[in-house]
């Protein structure tokens, strides 16, 4: 793929990660999330968010210890639903981690971009239930009805952080939305139009997503997810939020910020072929575009954080695309969804955070619940145990229904001049 129109890599503004916020089913906060990744924790547990009567499968990866009031100070808690609370709290966590105060954020020009698959669909589920129960839509709760649009995820973050001079955009490109959002922050800072972007993704476990994947036969019948395993049976739905502070290198250096990693580039490709089936060519093209944008050679990639949902179709197709790009000995390829389930719009944002943490702490997280690698998935998935490694460059994959692929490349800051 030619990127002849791109500004030459050497002339571009460099962009780094200076703050991270993670709310996940294996731990909230960076310390807990890092420990969970290293230990290979599973977030799976019986569903509490909604009534599972009538379903044979009753597991999901819910966030268990979320205390909204600890993080959310300025917007009323009922201004947003569960997904919005995750997003706002993770954003607060990320700016605090970056050492940015509200006073410093102030009127700073910035982008806030947040990816989501279902937004506040849990509220929609509840609204429809009210209507069905009463047989009258007039009884629907006005507070819930007024907050269902996806746009609120990002405007609520701006309100919470008291940032008026921002472009707040919610990317609703389903399960690739987290990487899309980070890419938009990268492009904005590269363009010179802002020095700061607060990006990521958020979703909440909801009946809608659960029923959809159940009906499509994509939900596992087990209490665990086994990506790349010959006996993998599908996904568990999950939830959480991952938010990242992206900053121009100049800005980060000027204020002496800690730098987790450099955002080297990303790639977007559209399969334009099928509304739900993954596409080997489309994923491979996305990877090539990302490597090209990042100026990274294939042998420089230390590991790949795969989309790795644990469905038959995804893992086989994605492995095939990775082999198409990298040849028969690709970088180690791990599936965080073995631990986190499929946290939808949050998935690739949490993936990006895990990649940054792996660079910071020098380890590769495992693919848990792994017994026997499927010959159709010829990758080293780092089964069950994390490994210590000097991680310099990482690729973070994501794909979505509607044929959308978004691939992000992060690198250790200071390794590349």
């Amino acid at each position: 793929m030619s990127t002849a129109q791109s500004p030459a890599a050497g002339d571009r503004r460099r962009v780094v990660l200076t703050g991270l916020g993670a709310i996940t089913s294996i731990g909230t906060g960076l310390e807990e999330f890092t420990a969970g990744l290293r230990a290979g924790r599973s977030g799976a547990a019986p569903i509490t968010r909604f009534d599972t009567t009538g379903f044979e499968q009753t597991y999901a990866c819910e966030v268990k210890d979320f205390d909204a009031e600890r993080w959310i100070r300025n917007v009323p808690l009922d201004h947003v639903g569960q997904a919005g609370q995750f997003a706002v709290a993770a954003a607060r966590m990320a700016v605090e981690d970056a050492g940015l105060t509200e006073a410093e954020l102030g009127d700073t020009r910035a982008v806030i971009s947040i990816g989501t698959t279902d937004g506040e669909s849990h509220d929609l589920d509840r609204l429809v239930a009210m209507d069905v129960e009463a047989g009258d839509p007039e009884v629907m709760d006005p507070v819930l009805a007024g907050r269902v649009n996806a746009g609120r995820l990002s405007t609520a973050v701006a309100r919470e952080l008291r940032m008026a001079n921002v472009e707040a955009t919610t990317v609703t490109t389903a399960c690739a939305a987290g990487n899309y959002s980070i890419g938009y922050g990268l492009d904005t800072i590269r363009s010179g139009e802002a020095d700061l972007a607060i990006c990521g993704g958020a979703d909440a476990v909801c009946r809608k997503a659960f029923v959809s994947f159940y009906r499509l036969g994509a939900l596992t019948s087990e209490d665990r997810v086994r990506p790349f395993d010959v006996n993998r049976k599908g996904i568990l739905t999950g939830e959480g939020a991952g938010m990242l502070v992206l900053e121009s290198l100049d800005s980060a250096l000027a204020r002496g910020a800690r730098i987790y990693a450099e955002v080297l580039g990303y790639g977007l490709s559209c399969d334009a072929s099928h509304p739900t089936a993954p596409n080997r060519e489309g994923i491979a093209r996305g990877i090539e575009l990302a490597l090209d944008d990042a100026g990274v050679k294939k042998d420089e990639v230390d590991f790949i954080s795969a989309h790795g949902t644990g469905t038959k179709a995804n893992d086989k197709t994605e492995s095939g695309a990775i082999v198409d790009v990298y040849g028969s000995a690709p970088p180690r390829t791990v599936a965080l969804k073995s631990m986190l389930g499929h946290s939808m719009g949050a998935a690739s944002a949490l993936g990006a955070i895990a990649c940054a943490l792996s660079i910071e702490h020098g380890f590769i997280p495992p693919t848990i619940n792994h017994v026997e690698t499927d010959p159709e998935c010829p990758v080293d998935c780092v089964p069950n145990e994390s490994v210590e490694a000097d991680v310099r460059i990482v690729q973070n994959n994501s794909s979505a229904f509607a044929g959308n692929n978004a691939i992000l490349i992060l690198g250790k800051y200071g390794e590349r001049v």
Partner: protein
Amino acid sequence: MSTAVSEAVRETAELAADQLVITGWTAVSPFGVDRAAFTAGLRAREATAAPADGVAGALPSPEACLVPGFDIRELLGKKGTAKLDRLSALVMVASDQLLRDADGERAVETDDRTGVVVGISMGSLETITDGMRQSLTNARPFYVDAGKIPVGTLNHAAGAAAIRHDLKGPNTTLGGGRVSGLLALNYARKLIGQGRATKYLCGSAEEFSAAHAWLEHVSVEQGETTPLLGEGCGLLLVEPAGSAQGEPVAAVLAVESRIDIDDDPAAAVTACVEQALDRAGVRADDVWAACPSAAPGRAGRAESAAVASLVPAAALDRVPSMALLGDTSAAAASLQIAAVLAVAEGDAESAGRVALVTAVDRDGAVACAVLRLLGATDQGGAA
């Protein structure tokens, strides 16, 4: 071309190679299913509210501004449309109009670097809530219509347009309600600027449904009345002037957005417009046509007042009020841009002039775009 557009021709010649320009547009709207109907209805200032008789389910109020004659199978064919939602169909019909000529042949070159970005509110609320209802009322909770599940994904419309026209570049859906059309335009501008796409189909859309109407009805602010709802899709073709294949009808000088964090939408709109004019390098007095969203409620009134206090009075009347179309929600901002372009094409005086489009959303976002009109007229305009 008449002599009146000579200034615009000069403006076109002076466009920098990387200046983003609009080289095509269409609108599927309550005025009618295509661009010609939109232009005619707009110029005649027709009201579009009518009894929403064909809509499935009881409604909180009897009237709506629907796209007349929007028969999905007739417009898109029988193949693959049995489960299609109205939102995706609106986007697909608009994309057909933008990319094909009257004979249905491809009229615009596209490739694997042609992007699609579509602004929405919450996707096809009818599809999503129907599935939820089935789960609660059918014999088993997973007895839902499987064919509707992909359609209920928020990014289905953008993906469906890409599949229909084999568009393999960046494909993105943005949730932002009434400002989403402007967020989409800014997204396309930035990604083209970074070399990720060579051209973009860029717009926003909303479908009318009972589900949407009830959610709006029960959440209406105290003291306000239930809004008259509309629907539609505005879609633009945008590309850099230097490589544009179509005739530019307008240059995108600036797109800006802000968040109203203090419940003062007028102040947010004022700041946003001033920032955009500044970035565009034009003065408020230069604005020849201004088109606010005419959103119902407090934010919409504040927006109109703020715009009126900034631009010359004559600029406010050139584009008929968007209230004619009802509250078209996510479709609004793209239809506003279409309205500005439709008016400009009928007025040779528009050549070289500045237009301002503003929008506010109830979730707190405000946005605006500053365009320079390039003098394409009904006689000489791009398809």
